[in-house]
């Protein structure tokens, strides 16, 4: 039986179809979760996709982080459930306290959509195990509030503990501190990144198929464990 990966839809979520497709391409079963759900239907992992949940009103990700479905997600993550937040999903996981740091407006103040190269800085997380440290991948970046920030102490800790998972392989176009594109929780089970691996799963529609690696990483180990 293939592993079941929940894909959450909030009002305003946009990339849920893409995330579900990526799960399927990687051999998993995508399970739709609704923002009002209070039960995760026993899924083996969760993807919080991109978009503009609740219109990004108040602050990107702030309202979604407090929606009903996030209660059980936070609880399950504390017990080690693999969770991936992409773009707005990354913002939501930061707002929910599952990931350190915050995402603020791009330094150029404009929305940026383009292909970008990322370096995998830690291939030891639940979502990067199929990569090797230092591998470079090409995926789209598309966000207006993608500049990762944290205070000096937090940055030092993230760097020291291997929690910087992805780094822009060129100067961060959004002004992210330390060129950080993605980070993980201390246990490496929860990962968030601004660029979009789910848009890089088929050469027909994306810049590469590099993004599949995140989904195959988690699925391989879920299947192995089952």
């Amino acid at each position, binding site marked *: 039986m293939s592993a079941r990966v929940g894909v959450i839809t909030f*009002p*305003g979520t*946009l*990339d849920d*179809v*893409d995330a579900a*497709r990526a799960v399927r391409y990687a051999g998993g079963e995508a399970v739709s979760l609704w923002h009002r759900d209070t039960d995760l239907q026993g899924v083996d992992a969760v993807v919080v996709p991109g*978009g*503009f949940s*609740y*219109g*990004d*009103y108040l602050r990107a990700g702030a309202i979604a982080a407090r929606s009903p479905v996030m209660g059980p997600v936070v609880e399950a993550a504390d017990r080690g459930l693999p969770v991936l937040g992409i773009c707005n999903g990354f913002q939501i996981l930061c707002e929910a306290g599952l990931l350190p740091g915050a995402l603020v407006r791009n330094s150029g103040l*404009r*929305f*940026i*959509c*383009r292909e970008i190269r990322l370096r995998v800085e830690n291939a030891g997380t639940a979502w990067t195990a199929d990569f090797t440290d230092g591998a470079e991948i090409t995926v*789209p970046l*598309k966000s*207006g509030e993608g500049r990762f920030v944290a205070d000096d102490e937090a940055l030092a800790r993230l760097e020291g503990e291997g929690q910087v998972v992805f780094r822009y392989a060129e100067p961060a176009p959004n002004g992210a501190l330390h060129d950080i594109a993605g980070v993980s929780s201390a246990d490496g089970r929860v990962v968030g990144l601004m660029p*979009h691996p*789910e*848009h890089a*799963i*088929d050469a*027909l*529609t*994306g810049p590469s198929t590099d993004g599949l690696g995140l989904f195959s990483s988690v699925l391989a180990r879920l299947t192995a464990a089952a």
Partner: protein
Amino acid sequence: MTAQAAPTSAEPADTVETAAATPGREQPYAALGLRDEEYARIREILGRRPTDAELAMYSVMWSEHCSYKSSKVHLRRFGETTTDEMRRHLLAGIGENAGVVDVGDGWAVTFKIESHNHPSYVEPHQGAATGVGGIVRDIMAMGARPVAVMDGLRVGPLDAPDTARVLPGVVSGVGFYGNCLGLPNLGGEVVFDPTYAGNPLVNALCVGVLRSEDLHLAFASGVGNKIVLFGARTGLDGIGGVSVLASETFTGSAGGGGHKKLPSVQVGDPFAEKVLIECCLELYRAGLVVGIQDLGGAGLSCATSELASAGDGGMAIDLDAVPLRAKDMTPAEILSSESQERMCAVVTPENVDAFMAVCERWDVTATVIGEVTDGEHLRITAGGETVVDVPPRTVAHDGPVYHRPLARPESQDALQADTTAGLARPATPAELAETVARLAASPQLASREWVTDQYDRYVRGNTTAATPTDAGVLRLDDAADRGIALSVDCNARFCLLDPREGARLALAEAVRNVAATGARPVAVSDCLNFGSPEDPGVMWQFAEAVEGLAQGCAELGVPVTGGNVSFYNQTGTTAILPTPVVGVLGLVEDVRRAVPSGFGPDGDAVWLLGETRDELDGSAWAGVVHDHLGGRPPACDLAAEARLVEVMARGAAAGLLSGAHDVSDGGLAQALVEAAVVSGRGATVTPPPGGLDAAAALFSESAGRMLVSVPAVAEADLARLCVELGQPAARLGRVGGDVLAIEGVDPLDVAELGTLSRATLPAVLDA
């Protein structure tokens, strides 16, 4: 501070009863844009004076924007030239919210292009954003899921001071709304010209996909069926001219009625629209909708009168039920409000509960505001009194029709006589190279990345090609490889020189761009942007352009399925260039076999399909190098364009083509530059023979041409195909290296050309 009477609704609304009793009351119809004879006609239809609310409805529905009163007599040409054969694949055509084309396998595609020009000048960001929002709702109203947007933008010169306000605002508005809706932007056009400085054009296109059986049309039928208003609340935004009525009704001057003076450009909320899209699609899937109409220009006035007149009866509406977001709105204001993100559905009584449950799931406000009645009356009440009682057809369809005078401008002969013949042409290898580079870096031809990098083109995962490709290509569904190709085009400089030929050239270019992917064109949507229809010269341009487009579509056998007209695009007495923007929808049998944009791999041959003539009048070269616009546009041979479509479609299906790029603005030279830059590869080529001087060979904008790359093993097959179809073709050279080496021209470094081209817009807009 003086105490001032707060505006209240204590003032009784102007009812039908009052109107009948006070025939002599003066009404501000002129300030609402109605002429004496139009007002008289309304009184004749009603047999009394209209109420304030009725006057508001007629004035907005009989406006140029809603009634097409100046263009109607000309637009008929599209219907007259469309044959049954052309209609064969149409599930809905002109007159619906958008045309719908059957594309086979049970799939249908609907698309439309619409202008939002004037609001985008007043407030570029919101004006452009709500332009996208409006066209998306038109597509939703057909029962389709909107799947992509494109936009044609026209602004003043890049270095004009106001361009730095207008262009970034428009781009951020298009991006903000489309990105938040999760609709990939496939590209479009950005054109700079002094005539657009006080009149930018924002033409937004949306395409939607549906299963043929899900087609929904806007009509209210079935007596007793409920009218449900859902989506955003109705407020005072976008009321525009109707505030004239408000200032009459409310005491006090600027201060007293201050709360009414909201900007007449609406404010968009894409989040509300995204939720509305998903809500509508769920309603369609559940079969809960009889008829549906979006609320755009003219708000409820338009939706109720159009639904009722397209249905089989009358309609009763209670304005007290309309959820409002402002206090003390008069009936006229509620009916005229252009608050965004609203839809109006006709629902059978037994389905109302289920309808409401779906809306509740999406947190969408929905309210029954009335029902379908028998008889020919649209009756609207407020506070228990009847404020509107009109035959709906007279509002929606029986507006005035004008035969505006038209006359070919006297200056046209002089304009056409002022050709490029006397202009100095570059001749030496150094001069030619300098000209190629200068054109590539000119605002007119430089990279649009600064714009398109602000648009999401990946969302939903079905985009297989987007700007800077010739056409956007979209897979219909990830379970199938069927797809569509879209392009929007217009060279308005050609249209000024000859509006009829210019419109045909716009059609030809859009068709060619779609053909560059291997797609076959199946439908056209047009957005006709012109100056004042009261100027006979402008009216002549308009009539000529419509005739050219209508005849052109008939020649190609591709129907016009809808579009819109935008008049009064002028500053003082100076009109914009006549700008009939043409959107073409093409069908791609297999997106995996679509021809990539640019050059193919190193070693592949470079061919030029089509003939090059000495046609430099109106060209980018004449504009950029000599600031010249005069003469005659290139000849447009639509039979040749159709042949080119056939060569491309068959060539793509047979796998003979490894790359393609349309030859248009800037001629062969610019096509080579763009192909090289987009592919990151050089080429060694010799311009086609034909007795032309080097400048004509490189910069002429002869129509009907395509630059293609051909794998060595396929050259013989392509040659045979060209012979079979009678397609002129010439082999120019080979792809390869880092340099664009054109015989007779100093070599140009591809990376440098790319840097040069990408630097132009940021240099000004990021300064």
